[in-house]
């Protein structure tokens, strides 16, 4: 397979009428990355993908493949493979003809086309399906044909536009593994568009979180989840509790902050940051970082707040609580593996405890 491609977007912009879909995006996708654009619908992620494929012309900015500008190259000459959200399999062609299409367009000899097509179908476990029509396949099989059709032309990039959104839950998980396996085998630079944060976290080597046409943050899944740089990112990737805090004291590794509501919260001091007393922070605590205890129980964790359970939802693998703390704020708490732990009733008084390690302070200007 050919050398993986590096993609650079430089101040890419696109408007549709009055709507600015992409508002100046600059980023680099490294060779062999599994790079995901994550964001709610309408955030511009699909538009970026379509500009890279060549279906949509950017209003401004550049798209570079391995340092070469491709803005003026029409889609049929870009050699990027795209898997469409609805698969876009041609209903009048057989599975074989669908997969062989791109090879025929490239004018390869018949025998080569045949060999490569069969091989591509084998790669996605569809041997023996060559003569079927797309309508005779299940959703998952159609998805595989679309993937085979795209990969068989040995594209320099693989573009995937919400490819799993039309599959049922079980199949989606199976196809995720499949995608990762194939991508790792081929070492092809892959761009993935999704609104599903779980999918993004599992699949990607790097994620760009997008909102309203802008990239909010780029990082590895771990960075994005554990170290969101803004409330929006923290909110979109996973759920979170937020407190507004003001620094009251600074120690060697810890900072002590007072929240709006008047609680004292101790958080870890980020390396390389130098907060001063009086500085404002947004404190971000994931629901699964919080533990529940009876008010009289002891705890080794630095932070504790009392509250009353308002709702509890039993999900089997976890219990989700909403606990109202003093001042009326509701805190989301997620207790995993609840089997051996106490289940708290609605209306019960509880103690919320959480570690300073688990608090991510986001500096506010």
């Amino acid at each position, binding site marked *: 397979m050919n050398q993986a491609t590096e993609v650079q977007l430089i101040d890419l912009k696109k408007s549709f009428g009055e709507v600015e879909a992409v508002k100046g995006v600059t980023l680099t996708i490294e060779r062999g990355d599994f790079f995901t654009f994550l964001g709610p619908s309408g955030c511009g992620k699909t538009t970026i993908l379509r500009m890279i494929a060549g279906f949509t012309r950017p209003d401004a900015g550049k798209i570079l493949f391995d340092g070469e500008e491709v803005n003026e190259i029409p*889609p049929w000459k870009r050699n990027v493979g795209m898997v469409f959200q609805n698969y876009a399999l041609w209903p009048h062609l057989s599975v074989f003809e669908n997969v062989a299409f791109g090879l025929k367009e490239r004018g390869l000899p018949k025998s080569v086309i045949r060999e490569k097509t069969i091989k591509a179908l084998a790669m996605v476990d569809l041997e023996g399906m060559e003569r079927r029509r797309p309508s005779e396949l299940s959703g998952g099989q159609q998805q595989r044909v679309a993937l085979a059709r795209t990969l068989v032309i040995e594209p320099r990039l693989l573009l995937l536009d919400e490819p799993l959104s039309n599959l049922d839950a079980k199949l989606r998980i199976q196809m995720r593994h499949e995608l990762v396996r194939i991508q790792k085998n081929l070492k092809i630079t892959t761009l993935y568009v999704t609104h599903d944060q779980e999918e993004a976290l599992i699949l990607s080597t790097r994620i760009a979180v997008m909102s309203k046409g802008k990239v909010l943050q780029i990082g590895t899944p771990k960075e994005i989840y554990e170290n969101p740089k803004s409330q929006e990112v923290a909110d979109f990737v996973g759920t979170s509790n937020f407190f507004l805090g003001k620094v009251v004291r600074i120690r060697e590794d810890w900072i002590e902050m007072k929240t709006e509501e008047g609680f004292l919260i101790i958080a870890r001091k980020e390396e390389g940051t130098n907060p001063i007393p009086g500085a404002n922070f947004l404190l971000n605590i994931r629901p699964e970082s919080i533990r529940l205890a009876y008010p009289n129980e002891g705890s080794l964790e630095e932070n504790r707040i009392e509250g009353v359970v308002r709702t509890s939802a039993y999900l089997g693998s976890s219990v989700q609580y909403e606990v109202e703390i003093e001042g009326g704020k509701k805190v989301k708490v997620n207790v995993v593996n609840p089997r051996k732990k106490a289940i708290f009733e609605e209306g019960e008084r509880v103690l919320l405890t959480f570690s300073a390690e688990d608090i991510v302070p986001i500096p506010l200007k």
Partner: protein
Amino acid sequence: MWNKRFKEIDLSQSLIFLILFALLFIFILYPLIRILHVAFTEESHFSFAHFINFFERSLFKESFLNSLMAGLMAVFFGSLISLPLAFFTIKYDFKGKTLIQTLGVLPLVLPPYVGAVALQLILGRSGMLNLLLLKWFGTSIPFMEGLKGVILVQTLHYFPFIFLNASASLANVDPSLEEAAENMGAHGWNLFRKITLPLMMPGYVAGALLVFIKVIDDLATPLILNYTKMLAPQAYLRVTTIGIEDKAGYVICVIMVILSFLSLWAAMKFLSLSEYAMVQRGGTGIPISKRIDGIKLILVWAFSIFVLGISLLPHLGIFLLSFAKAWSFSILPRAYTLNHYIEIFYRSPHFVKNTLLYCLLSAGIGVLLGSFIAFLLIRGRIFGKGLLDAVAMMPLAIPGVVLATGYLRVFHGTPLPLIHQPLTSLWIILVIAYTARRLPYTLRASYAAIQQIHISLEEAALNLGANRRRTFFKITFPMMAGGLIAGGLLAFITSSVELSSTIMLVPRMEYGPLSYGIYIYMQSAVGRGPGAALGVVAILLVAFGTYLVNKVFAGGSGTAFKL
């Protein structure tokens, strides 16, 4: 108790079914059976003799080939006009696109025989264009002579069927299918040939076959152009001049029915394939059409203006003629008058009045029958639904001449009890013929109207405390009304210009409707003015009706004319 209720419902349904089926049998199936019977018997034995005889006679053989030829050529030239128009208006975005789409449907509002007269004046031997050619170059081109003229008129009249159906199926092609092809390296003509064309094929073929059926069916155009070597005019001439005992007329009828049925069957077959274009249609939000400008835009406009200009010539001609005092051997009329309108509205107003009476009646009856049948088909718990459906849809493939011949055969010699006259000498026979001919339209409209009312919508009303009667008037009926009105309007406008069965069935001159009036007037030189004025009335009637249908259907221009 529940059991008993169900039985009652089934009983009343069966009764309605029997009544409906009896009606359809008497007025659709039986006349057809009688025609088949006559055509296939020789001295009360089954025989192909008449058919062998038919193909041995050169006049008939020529008529058969001419009809085939006219059908194929109308499809061919119609495609040349329609496919580019459809492609431009669906795939490109430019100023005036809607105008082109509207003008592209306009030829349908002009009855073809009216167009034939008008085209004579413009393209005929001593028409506008040839007079100019004579003046400038001393030569003329026989556009309108013989079969050529018939094909020209029919092409210009019927091409919108292809245009509409091709446009609809092109618009249904999921743009991501084309993008996927671009992504795989195809573009331009290659992409169109390999992906777009095959995907829009079903709709296009359906439109093309519809044109073919219409051309075979068309009696009036050849008659007006005085070219009788085609199937429909031959059948007409045999039955009207030689008499209803003449076997050849029936043989021609059978051949026409076979051709129509084959085409209709093929169209249905292709149309059922067209589902696949839509299967994958997801909310991709990809725009179907691209903006064009510069040379491309100019070419698109040039083509559209040329083609639509020609196809609208008949409208212009008929309009001029209706105000012309004298118009022969001159490029434009020499003087203008309102006399023709006075003639048709004051001196012989019965043509317009009859049309309104017959067509409103038949549209009303059609909607009633259609909704009863549709209701049985959708909600009925009885056997034989398929048969009922099949017989009701049959008129789509029964040419007007054939149905009329069948009526003459069945009803002519049999006086009805009490009034001691045969059905064929009453004007009601026209209403019956129109109702039968348009039943497929009214049935389909009713079917669609009822089908869109999911039973749960009614159950929701019942659940919230409305009784059955209130549910019907508050929920069911208001939801159906639009579709039913649209179906009725469609039946009305198409009946108002129906000529092929009219010519054969009009019992007496004063019972003739508008279409018949046009035909009669056009027989003489002095009648051409009033004939054209009637033509203008017909155009306005159809145009207004079409406008209303689209308004009610709210499906954009021409929903009504798609197969």
